[in-house]
């Protein structure tokens, strides 16, 4: 009896000790946010699951930035230590991960997610704990509306949807489109809505509409129904895993229309999954990897050296996010409590990042970020158009008055 008790105690203890050690990288040092030690920054992301490359790329970008900052002497003499939690591409896990980062690891700020549904699930937790959260690449407008501690580093879906509709409806002169959205994703629903809003304003017609659920494997029924309405383009604002399969099944059904989507397509896996079926399809993105701007060239070079692959937009946004946070922490001086850090992040102005110059507006979204439209040609991404928002205008207004430059 005593023996049994001893064994079960040992097992229980070892489980507690071994269970879920926080994955931390970079320099060692005493934990805690207290003065003197490392500054703990939390990151939650989809390192595994259906959107695995989103989380992995973002993580790479963040780690590269953190290491560069530490190599340059850290923030006010203290090193940054990133604690990463995997949310398995699930919104409910994202909420758990953030809860853990805040209550157990006591991080000073939280970075993440890519998928808007996950950011929307995690944001209220950061808001109520008064820990600033910066999402590198969630585009759904709702994310930053969760409170004044929630910031964003990328453009929003109203701007993205309107710009895409402008491009498709005006520049390409497309008159009819079908929309296929993911019912489980706030991102997909939002982007689909904003695209349709602008597209119909421009005189276009949405002739077919269908929905699927993330993780489905059969899309033929929905595609059959939109095929019947014979649209000129098929707008699919989804994530890359589903997109690759949708493209393939659309081709199987003899559909020749190009698929059009948003930044959720951005993944090195997209072309691997979709293959030839994606030729001639195009999507909007945050940056073009072969951009000639020195900031982009420099970043791509360093990233390739470190990870051996070309960085996607999510890596670039992760990199920018970490650097903006470090910049804000520097400006906040020694005070890294939630309120001081929040105010410092909110005051970010003219920060020169890889994805453009970042100035945060009163709605905690960056003002006037550039958008690119990329086309898939010969299994390569090519730049199709660049949308330059007018400088110094609030994000909402630029969405309708942006100028499109076709390459």
């Amino acid at each position, binding site marked *: 009896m005593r023996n049994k008790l001893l064994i079960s105690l040992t097992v229980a203890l070892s489980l507690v000790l071994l269970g879920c050690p926080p994955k931390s990288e970079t320099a060692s040092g005493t934990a805690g946010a207290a003065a003197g030690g490392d500054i703990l920054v939390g990151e939650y992301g989809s390192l*595994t*699951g*259906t959107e*695995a490359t989103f989380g992995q790329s973002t993580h790479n970008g963040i780690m590269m930035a953190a290491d560069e900052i530490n190599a340059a002497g850290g923030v006010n003499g203290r090193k940054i230590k990133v604690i990463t939690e995997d949310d*398995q591409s699930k919104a409910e896990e994202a909420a758990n991960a953030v809860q853990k980062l805040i209550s157990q690891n006591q991080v000073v700020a939280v970075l993440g997610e890519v998928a808007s549904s996950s950011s929307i699930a995690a944001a209220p937790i950061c808001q109520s704990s008064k820990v600033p959260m910066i999402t590198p690449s969630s585009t759904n407008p709702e994310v930053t509306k969760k409170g004044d501690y929630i910031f964003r580093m990328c453009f929003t879906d109203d701007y993205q949807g309107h710009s895409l509709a402008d491009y498709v409806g005006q520049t390409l002169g497309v008159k009819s489109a079908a929309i296929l959205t993911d*019912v489980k994703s706030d991102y997909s629903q939002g982007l689909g809505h904003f695209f349709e809003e602008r597209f119909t304003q421009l005189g276009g017609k949405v002739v077919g509409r*269908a*929905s*699927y*659920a993330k993780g489905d*494997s*059969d899309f*033929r*029924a*929905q595609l*059959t*129904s939109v*095929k*019947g309405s014979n649209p000129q383009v098929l707008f699919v604002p989804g994530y890359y*895993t589903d997109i690759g*399969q949708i493209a*393939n099944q659309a*081709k*199987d*059904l*003899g559909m020749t229309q190009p698929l059009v989507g948003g930044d959720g397509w951005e993944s090195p896996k997209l072309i*691997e*999954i979709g293959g030839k079926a994606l030729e001639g399809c195009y999507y909007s993105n945050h940056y073009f990897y072969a951009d000639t701007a020195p900031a982009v060239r420099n970043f791509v070079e360093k990233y390739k050296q470190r990870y051996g692959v070309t960085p996607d937009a999510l890596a670039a946004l992760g990199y920018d996010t970490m650097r903006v946070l470090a910049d804000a922490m520097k400006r906040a001086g020694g005070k890294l409590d939630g309120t001081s850090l929040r105010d410092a992040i909110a005051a970010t102005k003219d920060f020169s990042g890889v994805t453009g110059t970042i100035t945060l507006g009163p709605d905690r979204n960056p003002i006037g970020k550039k958008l690119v439209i990329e086309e898939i040609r010969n299994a390569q991404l090519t730049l199709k158009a660049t949308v330059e928002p007018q400088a110094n205008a609030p994000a909402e207004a630029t969405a309708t008055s942006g100028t499109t430059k076709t390459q």
Partner: protein
Amino acid sequence: MQELLQNLLNGVAVGAIYALIALGYTMVYGILKLINFAHGDVFMLGSFVGFYAGGWAGTRLHAQGGALGWWTAGGIMLLAMIVCGAVGYLNERIAYRPLRNSPRIASLITAIGVSFLLEYGGQFVFGPDPKFFPLLVEKHLINAGGVATTNYQIIVLVVAIIFMALLQYIIYGTKFGRAMRAVSYNFETASLMGIPTDRVISTTFIIGSMLAAVAGILFGLSYPKIDPLMGIMPGLKAFIAAVLGGIGNVPGAVVGGLIIGVIESFVGGSRFSNFRDAIAFVILIAILLFRPSGLFGKYQAEKV
């Protein structure tokens, strides 16, 4: 009209896969009155065997890239059947046989446990990320009078029909089949008549799991994204298909699978595409309410 035919064709192609899985549920239930909830996960294992074997064959035998060809595809399917057959056998031998004389609920809970073991063991071994099934044979588009299809859908249908016919032959044309039917009819009497019931039950599990492996390969061929939890939904739907056809009834499972596939396809193509996954469960509830014995099952009044 074209849309109708197209949906029908898509539905039949999915339904054939459900039917193959449903056969495993219904055979095991027919003999043991056990719902083998781990069956959907055996289907997942079949896909993963195909994924790894295909990956290996792709680098070793067909280094030039492209499709693997018919012979390799056949070999991969055979390998998946052997592995899944072995898993089915071990599953019965280790998890269910020791509990055969316990209350039925014990076996049922064990089945759920085995199912979780395979799902999360799969996540541990294969990793939770989706993987992409290798290209077994080159894909061709076929357009017949406005209805578009691929040779994949035709392969799925032909292979499914071959295996169903084979099963029909085993059950009604061989001595083993007769033994199986006898055990299913009355377990005790069959064993008194000298039928080796243990061996019959093991073989039933092996055959059912092999059919699941075939379904796994066909699924990977038509829907190349596979992950360790992929067996849950098709498994549940195949179970519903078996209930719809009358659980324990072999032709019923095939018809049930096809009906579920076609209904899903039509719902998916309508305005209610959100409810596609729900519709199978609505059917389950309706069947249990109005015809608990299923379409082909015999209703047996319980003597009190």
